[in-house]
């Protein structure tokens, strides 16, 4: 035996004598377990943390009252439930449920179509009844022919025509049938007859469109059938009035409108009617009616 080898054996013996491996087996196994755990922790800290979180979540779901959620997240439940959701959604869409957004789109689209149909009309006839001062009723009959010919008749309650106004691109002629006086003005703004003031907003379809697009504030819309009639309730903030415009949903042209004094308690009118207008569209109006002429004591046809 070499000298080096004998030295090694001596050191080994010395170490064995001083550090005796005489731990009780129970303590040794416990130490080993702790060492394994420590090593695991050192090797995979992130995974450990995740496992801890998962464990906590698992305890939360399993242990608490949230078992129903775990049951719901099972594939066997989730798959048929999601398919039912898709089918139910499709069925609901076909049956056409009402929604605020769909209703708004419908109102806006209808008013855009009405505005377009009115501005493309070839002729318009409307009778207007206005509640004037002293609870008196004034009646007007307006006839408009494309492109720019208008006749307005102011009618008394006994059906006699008091005044007639013809409007063309060149001039405006006003005939007073009581006095047989015919006078001319250049612009609508120059008309000083108080009786005609109520009719000035409806001299042509374009005036109506201008009000629809600019002045009127939509408040409500109700519809009877797909091709029957629809009624817009509109507010005119400057005049503090409410207006109900009824539209024929087959032609998308207005048939009637009523103006009420705005009642803050009510969404729609039903109060005192300030103005009642009935429309007829695209009827044939003889052109000679649009030429100014004076006849004493005319009566309404």
């Amino acid at each position, binding site marked *: 035996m070499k000298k080096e080898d004998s030295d090694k054996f001596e050191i080994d013996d010395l170490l064995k004598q001083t550090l005796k491996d005489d731990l009780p087996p129970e303590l040794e196994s416990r130490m080993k377990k702790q060492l394994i755990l420590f090593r695991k922790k050192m090797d995979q800290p992130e995974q450990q943390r995740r496992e801890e979180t998962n464990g906590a979540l698992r305890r939360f779901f399993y242990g608490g009252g949230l078992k129903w959620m775990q049951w719901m997240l099972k594939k066997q439940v989730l798959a048929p439930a999601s398919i039912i*959701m898709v089918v139910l959604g499709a069925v609901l*869409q076909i049956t056409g449920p009402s929604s605020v957004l769909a209703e708004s789109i419908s109102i806006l689209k209808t008013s*855009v179509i009405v505005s377009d*149909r009115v501005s493309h009309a070839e002729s318009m006839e409307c009778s207007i009844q206005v509640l004037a001062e002293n609870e008196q009723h004034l009646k007007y009959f307006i006839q408009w022919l494309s492109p720019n010919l208008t006749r307005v008749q102011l009618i008394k309650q006994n059906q006699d025509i008091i005044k007639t106004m013809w409007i063309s691109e060149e001039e405006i002629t006003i005939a007073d049938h009581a006095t047989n006086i015919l006078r001319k003005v250049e612009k609508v703004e120059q008309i000083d007859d108080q009786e005609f003031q109520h009719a000035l907003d409806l001299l042509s379809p374009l005036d109506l469109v201008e009000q*629809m697009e600019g002045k009127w504030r939509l408040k409500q819309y109700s519809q009877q059938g797909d091709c029957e009639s629809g009624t817009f309730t509109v507010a005119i903030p400057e005049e503090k009035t409410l207006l109900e415009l009824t539209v024929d949903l087959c032609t998308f042209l207005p048939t009637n409108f009523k103006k009420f004094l705005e009642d803050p308690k009510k969404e729609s009118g039903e109060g005192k009617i300030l103005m009642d207008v009935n429309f007829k569209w695209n009827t044939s109006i003889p052109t000679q009616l649009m030429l100014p002429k004076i006849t004493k004591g005319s009566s309404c046809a």
Partner: protein
Amino acid sequence: MSSIIDLKRIWKVLSRILIVIFFVTGVILSGSFFTDLMKGPSLVFVLLGGVGMALMGFSAREIGAAFKNAAGGPDGKENLQNSAYFWEAAARNFLMLGVLGAFISFVTALGRSRGGIANIALQMSESFLPAVYGMILGVICFVPVLKLTGELSKHPLQESRELLEKPGEKAVKILRFENIIGYALFIAVVGWTIISSLSLYESGSPLNPLEVFIYWPSLLVVLGGTIVLVMFIGDAAAGRSFTLSFALTGLIGSLMAFVQTLISFSSRGVRDVASAMTFIISSCFIALLGMMLVGIPLEDRTITAGKNKKQLTLSRIAWYVFPVAALILLLFAFVTVLIPVKKVV
């Protein structure tokens, strides 16, 4: 030598600042054209929403590193790649937020439609402004992406590949504090925008946001379809399947409703057209919100943790194609509402 380089850098920075000043002055002096395009609340919505989304998907450390790298600060290769991804995500978030903002403004303008036709049409046109802001901010955020990818390409191919193909040794971290803040901020910004805009109703009581924004048929179709697809694709925790599923169901739902709109034009009434258009708008809105709230933050966190970097192609298609398609469909809805076509026959 170093002082010459410093001087060059200073001149470079100064010239950039001057260009920005010239641009802003030009915008201010140009008069009403650009002032018409300014809408403060929409810009704030896009900006704050973008901050919220960044916090939802990234840690504060990652965001800080991305800013540092964009400013030219030196960093490791992996951080450089993560920073490039952060800026790409920011660009995508702004783009999507812009489109979402456009949808919210559009629906609000329609839901509150109590003005005259001209007024509503104006509000509807203005609703496209958030999309413009989103695109501008997206382009701005894309500049660092180009810069950082340029720097990445300078590294040897082997190293880049190593970075890309690094196995998922980093586990996807659970929600961090800043992520929760991000979610809260995003929900607050979207919720506040919806509620405040609907409370501006001109007369009567404010509208219920749920009634205006939730259209049950589209909600059921988009959510149901998404769950089915996620179950088929699997790996829901990675977020990618949610992003793809929301985009696909949103697109399919809105395209179906698009066909329904065209059919309603030719054979049915205005109400059917309105119902189909509501389905289009609502499907796109829900799908966008789902992508932004569920899919994208999960995906961002997975990607920055080193996973899924190779599977970005499909996600990128969903991120960019769906918002653009949704914006085109919104434009279609705008035109359809305002053109006076009743029936083709």
